[in-house]
């Protein structure tokens, strides 16, 4: 069985991850995925590179706990989360969430829940290189609001 959570510098292959999650499981009738990518602009400035730092150990544990929390809320079969760290460039893939379930509703919901949770509770930090120098990305109030709609109070930003 594949790990549920991977933190890695290498890129990932959406099709291969979806195939691995569904493989041999006849109960699966729906798969939803989310891929986050690096934009070339943020807050009005062009971005040439993005460096992603994380808290090794805590990152994996916190995302595992999020998947457990999602299982308590939604009736889905499997989940896979990959988050890249290190130096990334515009157009690069950053994060993947894939969820499988018998019917589509549970996959859509669990996928969005996991992303909303990850944005405000997983210990990653982005540093952008712009024409005016390097800057740490600010947390967004809208990400706390996204988690609040699931009934979870976030106080990240």
């Amino acid at each position, binding site marked *: 069985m594949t790990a549920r959570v991977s933190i890695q510098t290498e890129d990932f292959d959406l099709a291969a991850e979806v195939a691995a999650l569904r493989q041999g499981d006849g109960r699966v009738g729906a798969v939803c995925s989310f891929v986050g990518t690096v934009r070339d602009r943020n807050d009005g400035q062009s971005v040439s590179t993005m460096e*992603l730092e994380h808290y090794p150990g805590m990152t994996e544990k916190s995302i595992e706990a999020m998947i457990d929390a999602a299982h308590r809320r939604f009736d889905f079969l499997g989940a896979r989360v990959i988050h890249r760290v290190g130096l990334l460039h515009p157009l690069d893939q950053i994060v993947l969430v894939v969820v499988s379930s018998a019917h589509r509703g549970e996959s859509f919901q669990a996928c969005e829940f996991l992303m909303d949770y990850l944005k405000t509770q997983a210990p990653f930090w982005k540093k952008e290189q712009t024409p005016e120098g390097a800057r740490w990305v600010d947390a967004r109030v809208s990400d706390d609001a996204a988690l609040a709609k699931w009934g979870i109070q976030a106080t990240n930003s």
Partner: protein
Amino acid sequence: MKVSIRYFASIRETLDRAGETVETGAVTLAGLRDELIDRGGAYAESLARGRAVRLALNQVMADESALLVEGAEVGFFPPVTGG
């Protein structure tokens, strides 16, 4: 008691260190933060009250009222920005 501290992102940069082991008399995470602020300089700046600082106790998000335990690992970092 002895605890190990880890710093990340902008706080790690300001302090110019990724972590340290300290002997502390603090009971809570708030008390530990106050001890570090009392060192002055970069510590007072990066951990100042009113700044958004998030904390983890033994690699789980925690609030400042959480109680320290011997050998604990405490993380200090800015709001998270993954995804």
